[in-house]
């Protein structure tokens, strides 16, 4: 593991100090194969399990750094970002940030039964904007979403692409100091991708520090100068993008352009 405190003239913007994140799940339980019938009962009564999603991760991010997080599904990348955003409690360890750290994304705050207009206001308030800031940025959000008069229809009626455009447009209205993106770039059609890319570049410029979770190695290569590789909740490697990706390819035997096998059935 790379030394997280390597003497650097850079100013730290985010410090993650031996962080563990656990969460309880209700309704199911992992049991060993040869479990006795009495312990198998625990699948039905007291079916509560603890997932140790992040286990002792430490690193220091600096102002002006773009850091990619890689690792296979379930390696703890998203959980780590949520903990840094202050949205998930840490079981152990500490996180320090210079300013606000937040995830790009607002899905959970929106309501499918409300119109796009109402959701812009609701979503922007959820992101912490004041009513005055919302009035100021409202037209920008509408322009970026580009969904025409569907704005007056409930989000329930939107195609998945339109929903994604509106959600992206709302979420980019916030300007956090530390920006975290979780697979947010792979939404919408080609024209929208280009426009959204410009908007992301704008926020990245404002943020100074960016953490990006992606399974697309080409995105990681083009956006990040440093990569953290997580496996089973532990940090396996931390270093310059090219080095870590090379190591990742060697150790996992996967080409770094496409690290995870795609399922046969399309996933929306």
């Amino acid at each position, binding site marked *: 593991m790379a030394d997280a405190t390597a003497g650097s003239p850079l100013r*730290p913007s985010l*410090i993650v100090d031996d962080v563990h994140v656990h969460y309880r799940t209700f309704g199911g339980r992992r049991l060993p194969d040869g479990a006795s019938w009495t312990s198998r009962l625990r699948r039905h009564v007291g079916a509560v399990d603890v997932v140790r999603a992040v286990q002792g991760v430490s690193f220091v991010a600096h102002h002006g750094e773009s850091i990619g997080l890689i690792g296979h599904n379930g390696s703890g990348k998203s959980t780590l970002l949520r903990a840094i*955003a202050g949205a998930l*409690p840490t079981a152990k360890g500490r996180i*320090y940030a*210079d300013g606000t750290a937040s995830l790009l994304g607002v899905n959970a705050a929106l309501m499918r*039964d*409300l119109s796009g207009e109402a959701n812009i206001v609701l979503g922007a308030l959820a*992101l*912490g904007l004041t009513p005055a800031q919302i009035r100021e940025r409202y037209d920008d959000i509408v322009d970026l979403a580009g969904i025409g008069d569907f704005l007056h229809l409930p989000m329930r009626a939107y195609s998945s692409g339109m929903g994604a455009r509106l959600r992206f447009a709302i979420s980019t209205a916030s300007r956090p100091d530390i920006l975290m993106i979780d697979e947010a770039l792979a939404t919408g059609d080609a024209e929208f991708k280009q426009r959204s890319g410009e908007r992301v570049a704008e926020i990245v410029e404002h943020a100074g520090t960016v953490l990006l979770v992606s399974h697309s190695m080409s995105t990681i290569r083009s956006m990040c100068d440093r990569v953290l590789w997580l496996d089973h909740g532990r940090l396996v490697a931390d270093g310059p993008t090219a080095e870590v990706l090379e190591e990742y390819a060697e150790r996992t035997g996967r080409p770094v352009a496409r690290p995870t096998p795609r399922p046969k059935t399309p996933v929306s």
Partner: protein
Amino acid sequence: MSAGGGARSPLAQLAAEHGLQRVGVRPPFESYLAQAWERRHFMVAMAASKAYARNQAGYLGQVWAVLTPALWAGVYLLVFGVVLQTNRGIANYTGFLVVGVFLFHFSTSSISNGSKAITNNAELIGSLQFPRVLLPMAAVLAELFTLLPALAVMIVVVIASGEPVTTSWLLLPLAVGLQWIFGTGIALIFARLVAQVRDVARLVPFVLRALMYTSGVFFSLSHYVHDPTAAAILQHQPIALYLELARSALLREVPADPSAWLWGAGWAVGAAVVGLWFFWGAEERYGRG
């Protein structure tokens, strides 16, 4: 991690050197309240959206905001007034029943929805940072927004039942306000309990049903309870108290009792303070587990 000296790790020292703030810690109580106040617009928007979205799926849309309580009033008056022909010693049973049913429903839906506000919003909690107290408060405020058109229906029914409009009607908003504050406090307490032990949510409906029969919703408590100790307890029971206060504001036959107003205010302030304090105590732990 560190060899000798302080217990602080080198990373903690680095954070201190550069003035970085800890993420995910519970702020002191006063700053927590200040943060919640700063985000009040979000809470109001969540509550208003929820109350509004309830009625949007249908041709009549927001007409249902008034139609739903009007139909409830019709059903209760038909069953109790026409079919069962009971007035249970009350001159204006129509007014008594409508006030009781509407305001009791306000409290039960506040408590049952408020208690699930954390567990039902796990995804929202897992993605955005804001004072979690906004969630149960918004759930209860949504019930208040739903109640407002119902209050209009209630007032129409009370006037139609032959009750004169007097200055004491001005006390109705105060009674409803106290009931709202009380409901918020109780919702905050249950929201934390349910977040930590989900099974508690299964018990809430039983508590609410017990309250229904001990709050004088359909009949006057003094008419049925003769044991003086039991009567005194039931009369000071908060839900029964708030129904009594609203009735004393609107109905001539229910006497206005100043001590009841003091009790009502006491329950409201007490529940709000205890609820906020208790909810705040686990602030940094609300999340996926």
